[in-house]
């Protein structure tokens, strides 16, 4: 990576793309990984995911200059990356401090004959409540210098923000039923179970059951945590609901007086 003052328009565009993805909580898609690959001048970038919640297989997204590919079958090739030592510090970004960016010499782990044995790797661990991921930036021959490592450290919170929010959205969106989401949206507005029951014309027991199920699916144990998990990007996604239940809420409030 060149000095900031020598960044060209393509560098600026690629970096801005990564920052934008982090801000908006878009997932780490192959185009963003390709931008990352270009600015750190890597031969390829691999995103390894191990999502625990649904017993899913490891998933690998590999991005090379020629073609991006995704698959589960390639995961075995990457098993040593999981085995490699990496810092466990849990800072606010779910990663390690910059001086712990790990550069694993694959040969130590997987032996000289391994396809990655001569490669140099910078790794960033990414944790979500739903599983773990490791982002690997790989060069075949030339080692990463300090500037490359610092740029990677600089980018890491943006990359993990994108990854975390993308993963949360993907999982939360899939696993909840429409009714569970409706209940959670009302919970998010501070309604009690009784109020929700009246608004949705169901019994309090049913509301409690919906919430129990939602908690289990989201892997949480409190109302607040369930809301935070189900709507990682805030409640704007719930706007449409306001009209549908507005009347019920008014009734519920009147009934209490």
């Amino acid at each position, binding site marked *: 990576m060149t*000095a*900031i*003052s020598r*960044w060209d328009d393509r560098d*600026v565009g690629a*970096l*801005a793309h990564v*920052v934008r993805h*982090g*801000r908006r909580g878009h997932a780490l898609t192959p185009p963003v990984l390709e931008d990352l690959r270009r600015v750190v001048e890597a031969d390829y970038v691999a995103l390894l995911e191990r999502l625990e919640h649904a017993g899913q297989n490891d998933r690998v997204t590999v991005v090379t200059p020629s073609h991006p590919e995704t698959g589960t079958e390639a995961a075995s090739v990457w098993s040593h990356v999981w085995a490699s030592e990496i810092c466990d510090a849990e*800072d*606010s*970004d779910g990663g390690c*401090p*910059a*001086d712990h960016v790990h550069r694993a010499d694959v040969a130590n782990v997987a032996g000289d004959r391994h396809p990655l044995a001569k490669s140099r790797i910078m790794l960033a661990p990414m944790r979500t409540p739903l599983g773990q991921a490791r982002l690997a930036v790989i060069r075949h021959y030339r080692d990463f210098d*300090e*500037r490359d490592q*610092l*740029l990677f*450290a*600089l*980018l890491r*919170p*943006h990359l993990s*923000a994108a990854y975390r929010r993308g993963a949360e959205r993907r999982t939360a969106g899939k696993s909840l039923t429409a009714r569970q989401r409706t209940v959670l949206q009302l919970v998010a507005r501070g309604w009690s179970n009784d109020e929700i029951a009246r608004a949705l014309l169901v019994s309090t027991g049913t509301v409690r059951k919906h919430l129990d199920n939602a908690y289990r699916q989201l892997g949480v144990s409190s109302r607040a945590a369930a809301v935070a998990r189900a709507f990682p990007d805030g409640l704007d996604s719930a706007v449409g609901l306001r009209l549908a239940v507005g009347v019920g809420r008014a009734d519920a409030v009147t009934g209490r007086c």
Partner: protein
Amino acid sequence: MQSPDDADEAELRALRHLTQSVPLDTRSLDELGHLIPAAGIVQFELDAERSRVTMRGMPRGYDDSFQQTFWSAFWACEPCSYPDTSSDRESITTLSDFYTPAQLKRTRMYRLFDQLLDFEHAMTVVLPSHAGTEARVMFFRQGRDFDERHRLTLALLRPHLVSAYQRSVERRRVAGTLTRRQREVLHLVARGFSNDQIAKHLFLSSGTVRKHLDNVFRQLKVSSRAAAVARAFPTGVPATGAGARVPLPRQSRQYLAG
């Protein structure tokens, strides 16, 4: 004039510092200057109620009348109140996003700061804390405005600066949880007293003093007397703190005189 190599080295040093887990301090502001050239870099800190502002990097102090002028100008100044009114604390903004140069010069905020530093352009990054306080790092310039490269650099640095600011806030919070007695002991440590001397001043055994200090060290996560003082009084040792009010018994006056 710096050679390109020196500038490169300074940039690397700055990146190294700013991506490490350190609190936001005067050095951080200096290092930021190597990445984003500016005539002045000022760290503002707004309290949670938006009623006090403190500044680091300013040539002059900020008394009550300054506070009054500042806050009456604050809500009328669009770029100043934008993070609060829009809840957008992530965007890096410049004054020119909001005002033409002529409009800027008509604002009360400009007239207030024009007396303190010469500037035409400014770029701001907002750093929230969990406590509701907020730091803003502002880069000031004459001549050419900040461009998209500067904005991008600051956007890249922002998560690191947010963490650094939150670490500072946390350290201050922990320093605030010390008991009155612990602070008294630390005041005397700051004045260079030994444990024995402190024990005599406060009518304690030196074992008790040691125990107080042990607890302080643990709470502040430090391992030396000097570090404890620095951490407990981040803005300097107050002249009339809790400890200073304790009347010194006669033999300690002798110590001081001797």
